[in-house]
């Protein structure tokens, strides 16, 4: 797009003053990312990774930045509770940390957890690598504006060889006001550490917002991360999330994602398997309905020997909704003996719904096992008739089959209470 600043969205985001940190390197990184955003603007659909997600409509909106009232917005903490998840919780409202809604009192030994706004007041040097990153590509526009503007988020570290028993819950709430907010998360699991992270996106009221989240997650040698994402943002939310995951030798990460909410939702997962025998397992369900648009982009790079990735995603689109899935897997030179498996199956529940899916596999190594597949279809007529012939009404039969289709990829989520909760939410999202 020429003259990026002529677009209301770009102009409004550039209008926000840069947060001042007092840290030279950080302020410089913010300026540079902001300059890159000002020059490049928003990606259009000619950029491959944005081919099916047009930002034309969003580009015409403008959002004020920062919420002066973020500390006083009424949010009912009880609505944030999740079955199977109790213990440490960090809550952000419109991108700002809310101590009153969080519970950080009893941090288990070996877990260090604080909001970025506080972490920057102390020794910020450990954050320097992550936060001084420059995003140069126009496809990274939302990461650029996030790097320029985010002043809060999560800083989490698990000490080496420490197993954190209870899940840690991170909640991002979009509340009331029509504005843009940003959150930057830096997460590290030390060697041999274990953590279950539950990331939740929720809303209070149904404000029209623009939100960006960028997370850097480093999983060190032999560490195990289990990451569950429940995205149930408000129907007015334009939510751009980018997770950059680095897996060192023998590290294992499992990701379960349920995408339910939002108006325009984009999830970028960039995973690099940089250590030998690292394993990544991603599972996800996206269920746009109404006029929702939910886009999932996986970019997985196998860069070391005998690395494994499995990705099983399901999409269900109803009404006039649109789902987008791109799974790009690269097995880099030298990543011999790697195993990559990707599947994306999709269901269209309405003739006006659309799902675009694109699995891509690039292999530059030897002795690699790789498989990918994608399908888009309707519910199996034979199965529907079978259920109906036993007395189950058509609508119920459809819901039963659709829920089964989705649950297939959430079945290996070990937290039973949470798994059943997610299953209930996805059933509730189905047409009655």
């Amino acid at each position: 797009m020429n003259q990026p600043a002529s677009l209301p969205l770009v102009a409004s985001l550039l209008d926000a003053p840069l947060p001042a940190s007092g840290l030279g390197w950080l302020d410089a990184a913010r300026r540079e990312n902001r300059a890159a955003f000002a020059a490049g603007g928003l990606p259009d659909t000619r950029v491959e990774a944005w081919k099916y997600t047009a930002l034309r409509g969003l580009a015409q909106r403008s959002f004020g930045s920062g919420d002066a009232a973020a500390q006083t917005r009424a949010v009912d903490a009880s609505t944030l509770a999740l079955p199977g998840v109790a213990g440490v919780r960090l809550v952000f409202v419109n991108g700002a940390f809310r101590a009153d809604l969080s519970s950080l009192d009893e941090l288990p030994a070996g877990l260090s957890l604080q909001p970025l706004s506080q972490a920057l007041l102390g020794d910020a040097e450990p954050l320097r690598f992550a936060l001084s990153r420059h995003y140069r590509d126009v496809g990274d526009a939302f990461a650029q504006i996030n790097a320029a503007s985010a002043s809060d988020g999560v800083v989490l570290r698990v000490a080496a060889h420490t197993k954190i028993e209870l899940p840690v819950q991170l909640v991002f709430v979009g509340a009331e006001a029509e504005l843009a907010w940003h959150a930057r998360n830096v997460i590290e699991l030390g060697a041999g550490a274990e953590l279950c992270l539950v990331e939740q996106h929720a809303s209070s009221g149904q404000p029209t917002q623009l939100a960006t989240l960028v997370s850097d997650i480093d999983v060190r040698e032999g560490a195990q991360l289990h990451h569950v994402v429940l995205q149930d943002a408000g129907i007015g939310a334009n939510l751009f999330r980018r997770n950059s995951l680095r897996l060192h030798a023998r590290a294992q990460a499992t990701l379960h994602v349920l995408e339910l909410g939002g108006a325009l939702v984009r999830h970028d997962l960039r995973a690099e398997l940089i250590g030998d025998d690292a394993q990544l397992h991603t599972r996800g369900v996206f269920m746009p309905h109404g006029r929702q648009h939910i886009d999932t982009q996986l970019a997985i790079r196998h860069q070391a020997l005998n690395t494994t990735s499995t990705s099983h995603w399901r999409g269900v689109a109803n009404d006039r909704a649109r789902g987008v899935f791109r799974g790009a897997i690269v097995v880099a030179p030298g990543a011999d003996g790697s195993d990559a498996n990707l599947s994306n199956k999709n269901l269209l529940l309405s003739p006006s719904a659309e799902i675009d899916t694109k699995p891509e596999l690039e292999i530059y190594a030897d002795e690699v096992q790789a498989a990918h597949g994608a399908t888009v279809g309707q519910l199996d007529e034979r199965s529907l008739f079978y259920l109906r012939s036993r007395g189950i009404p058509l609508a119920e039969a459809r819901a039963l089959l659709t829920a089964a289709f989705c649950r297939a990829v959430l079945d290996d989520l070990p937290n039973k209470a949470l798994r059943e909760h997610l299953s209930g939410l996805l059933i509730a999202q189905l047409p009655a």
Partner: protein
Amino acid sequence: MQERTLCAMHFPANPIAHEVRSYRSCRVETMLKIENLHARVEGKEILKGLSLEVNAGEVHAIMGPNGAGKSTLGNVLSGREGYEVTAGTVTYNGIDLLTLAPEARAAAGVFLAFQYPVEIPGVNNTYFLRAALNAQRKVRGEKELDSMQFLKLVREKLKVMQISDELLHRAVNEGFSGGEKKRNEIFQMAVLEPQLAILDETDSGLDIDALKQVAQGVNTLRSPQRAFLMITHYQRLLDYVVPDFVHVLADGRIVESGDKSLALKLEEHGYAGIGASHPAGAVA
């Protein structure tokens, strides 16, 4: 006529409507009445004037060569999409069956045991069966069963059908052997207790032990209130489930009817020649 008089006495001052109703409720009514049924699949006429009457308590075997329309008959009766009825009527307990959705037919007591039961991954067998039974009960105005009541019922039926309860914990038909799928059909029938059970080639693909088990299940469910329509290609099943009537279906219509000896005749002479004396005796 005597029945009619007796019944009318319950309504001493009845208008004609009452008299008609009491008359109908007293005489032994035909459960299923198929008249001159014509049906098409993908534009091709398969049933070409089929007529058949089935009463409660009766077991009818429909036999015929491949392509005669046997499975089409089962599918039309259970309401499968893609089957177009172009002429004729099907009356079930006095109602026009063809206007009902498949689920409504099920609730009214019609059950189809599939020739090829569908595998449904992710849907638990027990959950499915309880949803089905409760959906039917709801339509009939009966109280739905809670999970304890349902489990009790299921355990009874498992015992009667001699089926292991391991089957309950699996997804519907997923990974079942051919014999297990057919037994699961009969088990579902036992739980749902239909009035009219249509068995579509339930014997196909079964070894002799599985066939005996399935037959025993069917025999257990025989009752004066229930009728069976057994669609089969071979006489074999009829050794174990002895029918009251045997019909030969050829080229879309019943060309010959008789008792069980007809099946034996077919076994001996094949379908060629059957119905040859009949004007509609074209054999496929």
